[in-house]
């Protein structure tokens, strides 16, 4: 018997790189168009009144109005679901709207969430200030405080939320352990995996129930288009308890439909679309969906280059005289290095935080004098990006919140691009030289 025969038959389902190019689309159903067409339309003809009623009653699949769904956007949704190992996905106009829609699908007024404290500033504001206006309260827990998540769960807690790798401090959330805590409490774990993309980590494989992305970042990858998505894992049993009545009982919000009974492993996405898109409407434009699809076609190639450049950058920064500290999960003394090796085997991502000697003044001089690296409020572009969080992305936080979010005045956040590394390094040398003599260079 050959080795092949001993191993038995393996499924011939398509693998990651192939799915990145093909999932969600069949040319023969679209006039043979090899590229995904852009369906730039608001609405779709009904065959007759019976067909119209069938679509509204969810008797049949199909499109009604592009706020609810669109054929180009649907290709993107299927493609990301395929790459994440999810059952279904719903694309939105931005990553923030994906988070908001997830929470509004899950929670009612009077509910509670347990949330990692290390998040993008906008997300912190959503949980801390905006959601309470809807009657949804949150308890923040440091992402490394696994036991803290358990202690923070209340009777009315409906989920745990966190970023897989915290922004901007690079704390790695222990998904396998925290998902166990969530599931023991009968609630789902929602993970924002924007920084990783499914190329580096598929959170559903590690216990997450819902994954959200800002597709604007590495997934689209070229800094051109805003988009977000939520992906459903399909494993969470909504009917195990009475915590989610709008999922498990006939729901007045959608004509008496019980989403969990009817749609099981896709119930969350079906509700997010049927109710959330109908009522809140943060739909993705077909043009932006198409732009993101172009990015996803090269996701694995780009992520490999992002990660290899990031590894070189970490090495360079660690040995640099102007650098006080470097935070990246690949660094052996990073507190989460071992966890990162387990969760991120294909690379630790291209977000690096480092402290510049000379504090705030040196940081500003560095930012003002790099020429190749772009100073802007985004991450995950093909180009290298730098920013000083305390004065930009997290500037709406007061001093106490800033400290709680793990930020310091000397911190520079770096999103490593895919340029030739020597060019990035030479640019940084210019910045560091300026940082050492801030006044002299900034006056030139």
């Amino acid at each position: 018997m050959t080795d092949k025969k001993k191993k038995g038959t393996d499924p011939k389902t398509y693998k990651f790189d192939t799915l990145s190019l093909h999932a969600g689309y069949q040319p023969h159903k679209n006039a043979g168009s090899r590229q995904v067409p852009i369906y730039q339309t608001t609405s779709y003809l009904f065959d007759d009144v019976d067909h119209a009623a069938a679509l509204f009653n969810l008797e049949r699949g199909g499109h009604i109005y592009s706020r609810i769904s669109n054929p180009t956007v649907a290709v993107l949704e299927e493609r990301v679901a395929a790459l994440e190992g999810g059952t279904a996905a719903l694309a939105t106009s931005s990553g923030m709207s994906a988070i908001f829609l997830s929470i509004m699908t899950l929670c009612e007024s009077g509910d509670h969430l347990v949330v990692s404290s290390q998040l993008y500033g906008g997300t912190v504001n959503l949980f801390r200030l905006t959601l309470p206006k809807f009657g949804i309260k949150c308890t923040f827990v440091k992402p490394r405080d696994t036991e803290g998540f358990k202690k923070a769960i209340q009777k009315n807690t409906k989920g745990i939320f966190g970023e897989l790798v915290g922004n901007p401090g690079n704390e790695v959330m222990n998904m396998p352990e925290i998902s166990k805590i969530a599931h023991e409490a009968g609630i789902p774990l929602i993970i924002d995996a924007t920084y990783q993309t499914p190329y580096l980590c598929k959170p559903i494989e590690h216990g997450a129930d819902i994954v959200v992305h800002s597709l604007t970042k590495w997934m689209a990858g070229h800094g051109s288009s805003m988009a977000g998505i939520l992906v459903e894992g399909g494993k969470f049993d909504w009917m195990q308890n009475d915590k989610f009545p709008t999922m498990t009982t006939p729901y007045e919000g959608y004509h008496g439909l019980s989403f969990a009974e009817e749609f099981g492993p896709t119930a969350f996405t079906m509700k997010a679309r049927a109710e959330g898109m109908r009522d809140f409407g943060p739909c993705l434009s077909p043009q932006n969906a198409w732009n993101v699809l172009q990015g996803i076609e090269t996701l694995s190639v780009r992520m490999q280059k992002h990660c290899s450049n990031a590894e070189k950058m970490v090495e360079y920064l660690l040995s640099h005289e102007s650098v006080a500290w470097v935070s990246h999960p690949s660094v052996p003394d990073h507190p989460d290095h071992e966890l990162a090796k387990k969760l991120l085997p294909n690379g630790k991502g291209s977000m690096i935080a480092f402290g510049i000697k000379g504090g705030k003044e040196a940081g500003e001089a560095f930012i003002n004098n790099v020429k190749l690296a772009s100073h802007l409020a985004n991450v995950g572009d093909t180009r290298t990006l730098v920013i000083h969080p305390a004065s930009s992305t997290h500037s709406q936080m007061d001093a106490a919140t800033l400290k709680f979010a793990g930020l310091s005045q000397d911190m520079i956040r770096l999103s490593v691009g895919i340029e030739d590394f020597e060019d990035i390094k030479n640019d940084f040398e210019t910045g560091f030289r300026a940082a050492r003599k801030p006044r002299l260079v900034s006056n030139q």
Partner: protein
Amino acid sequence: MKFKVNGEEVFASTGGRPFDKNKPLMIFVHGSGLTHMTWVLQTRYFAFHGYSVLALDMPGHGLSSGDSLKSIEEMADWISDVIDAVDYKEASLIGHSQGCLVNLECAFRYPAKIKTLSLMGGAGAIPMNQELLSLAENNDSKAVDLMMDWAHGPAGHFGGHPVPGLYHMNTGGMLAKTRTIRDTLGVDFRACDNYKNGFEAAKKIKIPTLSILATGDKMCPVKEGKKLADLIPGSKVEIIDNCGHMMLLEEADKVLKALKKFIISNFPAKKN
């Protein structure tokens, strides 16, 4: 809705409408290891158009309690018990894959109760690939992966789900993992492999029968479906091109269209 059959709780989707005993009864029977959710793109239509629908979770599957039934014959008897339990005298049966064997045997055993048969991806016998059977009986999730691979055609492998945003392969895989693989898929595959009465039963069927087959079906190929259909007098056959075994989801609209035409002609709903 939930009701009891032989002392065990049974779950059935009623297609989003209240179960109404004044309407004709359509019973949908899922394939090996799956659940009522495979039928969502057919059941809701009929529920909204004058029928009482029961898309069953077989015992031990999905949301139904009890242990999985070990033979196709036991399952056929159980379907008859379901009809009794909901206080009907007759029903129209719709089955997919293993569900076709169950319905065929049920119509053979209880000819007075069954008014029409609709068989999707059916055959007179479904001998199992022994490797697949062994994996399922050993609770190996690779059994589900292989089943999803072989059961799906282009729509499954590439995409293009009729419901925007859903991905066939992972949704199907998750349905098959709702309960322990050994106790659902393993038992079901063995029941299919053991069942030998399909062709003899077919010869005795005298009710209107529709077979919906798909050219890309690797699990119950068209020639096997036709072989069965040829034994049933007056049987109708619809063939869907470029589609796999999971036709009820991959080409849901084409399946619904064929099913509507057949049911409306042979098992009409009462007019208001």
